[in-house]
């Protein structure tokens, strides 16, 4: 299988006044096409930072980030924006829908940015996706008229509408109850299996890790290992007591 994301010796520093915070301290990671991969680690371990670098919404301080074969450090803002538009789909923890647009318009938006499809083709594509996520009947609703689970399903449809190679989801279920969260993950998984889209999602919830093909464990800004979901869940259970204070604190 070919690599779609390659991360080499990546360091990400945030400067807060005089002090420098190292959010990532030399991360190496390869993600292959079609994977359904979970990035797991406690709060503050660097999951969001890592996903932001993969998603080209932020840049690394040092190291190489390659997405879809392109070295992002060498790309202009305009090229990065185009890469995000055409290659990457985002699912955010807090849904991030445009409040003044309807469900249909939110999902259609990336297609308008791409400006490749006719109105008729766009309609077909958007309605098809909204049917898959079970929102065919809510096309004209505004985000504030939907439940959290419904909003996240709109976000999933928006992330997938351009047929991206990679979908990034930062704790997609964190703001949902467990039942709805499970339904969302089922949906993501089925889309992964049907279309072969690569999914990278972060979580610190072991119930969520179960869905992954592989779990990349991250702690303190470093990748500490890559394991099967079963092992990951097992570790999670063991370590819960010893790590709990650290988790809560961050």
């Amino acid at each position: 299988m070919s690599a779609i994301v390659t991360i080499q010796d990546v360091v990400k520093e945030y400067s807060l006044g005089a002090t420098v915070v190292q959010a990532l301290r030399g991360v190496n990671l390869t993600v292959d096409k079609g994977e359904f991969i979970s990035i797991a680690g406690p709060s503050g371990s660097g999951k969001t930072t890592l996903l932001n670098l993969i998603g080209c919404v932020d840049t690394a301080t040092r190291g190489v980030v390659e997405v879809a074969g392109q070295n992002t450090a060498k790309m202009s803002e305009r090229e990065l924006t185009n890469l995000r538009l055409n290659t990457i789909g985002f699912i955010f923890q807090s849904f991030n829908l445009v409040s003044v647009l309807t469900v249909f318009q939110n999902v259609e938006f990336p297609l308008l940015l791409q400006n490749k499809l006719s109105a008729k083709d766009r309609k077909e594509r958007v309605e098809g996706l909204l049917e898959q996520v079970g929102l065919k009947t809510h096309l004209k609703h505004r985000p504030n008229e939907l439940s959290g689970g419904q909003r996240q399903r709109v976000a999933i449809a928006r992330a997938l509408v351009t047929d991206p190679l990679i979908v990034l989801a930062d704790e997609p279920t964190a703001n949902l109850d467990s039942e709805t969260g499970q339904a969302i993950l089922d949906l993501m998984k089925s889309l992964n299996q049907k279309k072969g889209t690569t999914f990278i999602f972060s979580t610190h919830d072991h119930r969520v890790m179960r869905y992954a093909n592989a779990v990349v464990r991250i702690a303190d800004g470093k990748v500490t290992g890559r394991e099967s979901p079963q092992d990951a869940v097992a570790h999670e259970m063991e370590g819960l007591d010893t790590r709990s204070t650290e988790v809560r604190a961050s």
Partner: protein
Amino acid sequence: MTFLSPMLWVIAFRSLLQHRVRTFILGAAIAGVTALLVTLTGAFVGIRSTLLLSATTLMSGHVNVAGFYKASASAGAPVVTNYKKVRAIIDSEVPELDYVVQRGRGWAKLVSESGAQQVGIGGIDITNEPGFRQVVQIKEGKLDDLTKPNGMLIFEAQARKLGVKVGDTMTIVAPTFRGTSNTVDVILVAIAADIGMLSSWNTFMNDQGLRQLYQLNDESTGALQLYLKDIDQVKPVQERLRRVLAASGFELLDPDPRPYFAKFDSVNRENWTGQKLDVTNWEDETSFVQWIVTALTALATIVIFVLMMIIGVGIMNVMWISIRERTREIGTLRAVGMQRQAVLAMFVAEGTLLGVMSTVLGGLLGVLLSVGLTRAHIGLPTSWQFVFFSERLVISPTLFWVLFSVGFITAVITLISIIPSFLAARLKPITAMSHVG
């Protein structure tokens, strides 16, 4: 996605709608300023046109053929000695002509039992003055009595000052061009409504009476006032007349854009005698009252400028608030693949939309306000009459100025909205997305 994409306008429109109260307040302010601008420009046009009508009718015509007659080098009189010949040339050479009148010119002291006043006197043949009747509104007496050789017309303020009423006798004391003073008794036959500052020094008397006062013959007058069908033809007519009159053997003064009474000094310093003609236009002859238009323009410009500044600061603030509230949204849209220019265009579209909607509404309001105020026949205080050249408020909104107001204010608002929009578009997507508040 460009400025023309419907989706940008949908987002802009709905964002405005989402913040109804804010949009309404700002929109109302913009509409108010637009309405004010329309009304002010309307008042400006109204003043200009009443000034133009009054001043040209009372004093100058559109094109003015006058001149000086000098018996000796330093004794210039505002007289055209052979006006019937000049008039014949005008009749044959100016097809643009609507009509032409002849007026005598005098400068004298008007003395009543209780007062005296220095005035300009127009010698008028009221039977041949179609425009005069429309502009001069008689309050007391009869205009047609100006056919009496010693009939005189003055304005209300003058009548008050001189303490006279129709039927009273007054004496005119005029220094002649020969150095002595002539006097003649006149009867006040009509008192007219004031026409702003124009009526403070203008009076009119029978043209034959004025000739007697200055001992001039029937072939003489002060000026020929030409009224054209189209006032924009003034320049070509003026030039043609100069040429034709010179070719017909008349001597002409050099072109000089000052009213005739400002020319005595320079004419008397020149070393010629006999007749010279002068061809001027209404702008030259009434330039001394047009400072009012200039002053009003300056005043209106300052008012508009200050209001625009206030509105501008308001727009800027609201844009800042709007952008701050939507920073996360901007971040999301940028993350999803929206280019910086598109974000910029989206916010500018919002400003433009607000501008267009509010200014169009304001333009309509301004027109209604102008028409309403004019229809209401609001009497102006005396001091205002002085500069408005009318007893009543006349506001004439024109299509040009309405479109100008709408376009100008929309343009300013769009420009102002570019600054915060630009800064919003420049944010890194991640910075925008992690924005709180």
